[in-house]
């Protein structure tokens, strides 16, 4: 985040804490992409992701006084989003994961590269168990280091590293047709 952008968040945060609704709306706009994307890739359903993302900002509104800085804000949003998503996945063991390629409107492939491969990757990530999925998303969507991920998810660092190692091996193997997600994780899509 540039200094200018950071100041903008700080300013919005301070004003939102003072009760300025337009400042809170600004905070939502600044962070909706992160929150919604995490929710979407955890739940693999646009409507449920929207609902969860709204819930996250609702909770933020209730807990604004606890958020101490823009850095803390981003940490808080990531933590609450992943935690709520994991909770929802655990409460819905028969949750049917929609393959993202069947869902229109998911990221249009503007950048160069293999769009089919990327859709396959998103599908496969959507089949990982909740905790492993959260680790992979925080690492490769949010570009967080393993130690930061461990802090957000309140998980031992070694467990984060294990999740990354195993998940990436499964993803690579699946793409090359060698391994299967089901062999490494429960195969019925349920969440361990």
């Amino acid at each position, binding site marked *: 985040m540039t200094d200018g952008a950071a100041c903008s968040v700080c300013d919005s945060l301070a004003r939102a804490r003072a009760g300025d609704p337009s400042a809170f709306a600004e905070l939502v706009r600044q962070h909706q992409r992160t929150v919604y994307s995490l929710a979407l890739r955890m739940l693999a359903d646009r409507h449920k992701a929207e609902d969860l993302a709204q819930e996250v*900002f609702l909770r933020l509104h209730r807990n604004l006084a606890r958020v101490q800085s823009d850095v803390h804000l981003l940490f808080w949003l990531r933590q609450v989003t992943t935690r709520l998503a994991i909770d929802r996945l655990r409460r819905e063991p028969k949750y049917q994961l929609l393959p993202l390629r069947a869902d229109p409107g998911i990221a249009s492939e503007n950048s160069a590269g293999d769009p089919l491969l990327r859709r396959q990757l998103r599908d496969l990530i959507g089949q990982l168990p909740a905790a492993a999925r959260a680790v992979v998303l925080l690492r490769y969507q949010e570009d967080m280091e393993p130690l930061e991920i461990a802090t957000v998810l309140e998980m031992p660092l070694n467990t984060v590293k294990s999740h990354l190692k195993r998940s990436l091996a499964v993803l690579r193997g699946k793409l090359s047709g060698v391994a299967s997600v089901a062999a490494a994780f429960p195969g019925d899509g349920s969440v361990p």
Partner: protein
Amino acid sequence: MSPDFENELREALRAVDPEDGFAERVRRRIASETRMRRRWLSARWAPEALAASVLVAVLGVYGWEQRRERQGLEARQQLIEALRVTGEKLDLAYRGVQDASRPASADDAGA
């Protein structure tokens, strides 16, 4: 892990925006919840005040229980990881025994 594969992952997981009007929908939901909470809090009867105190106590216990749940789930995860490593090394031993049982070939390890 090859950097190319990790880059593909990053590209695949590039963040996306919700549908237009998200901030407005959040605003409406907050407003709706605020109205409901005000209605609930504005009642002056003692039973409601008592219920509020009980709710606060329950939420406190709930917070503790959530922490315990997280610790328990973490312990479960560690247990599964420990069993995974155990199985992996037993598998290594098994494959070694299998290799040793095969007929000798030119590049046999001689195990």
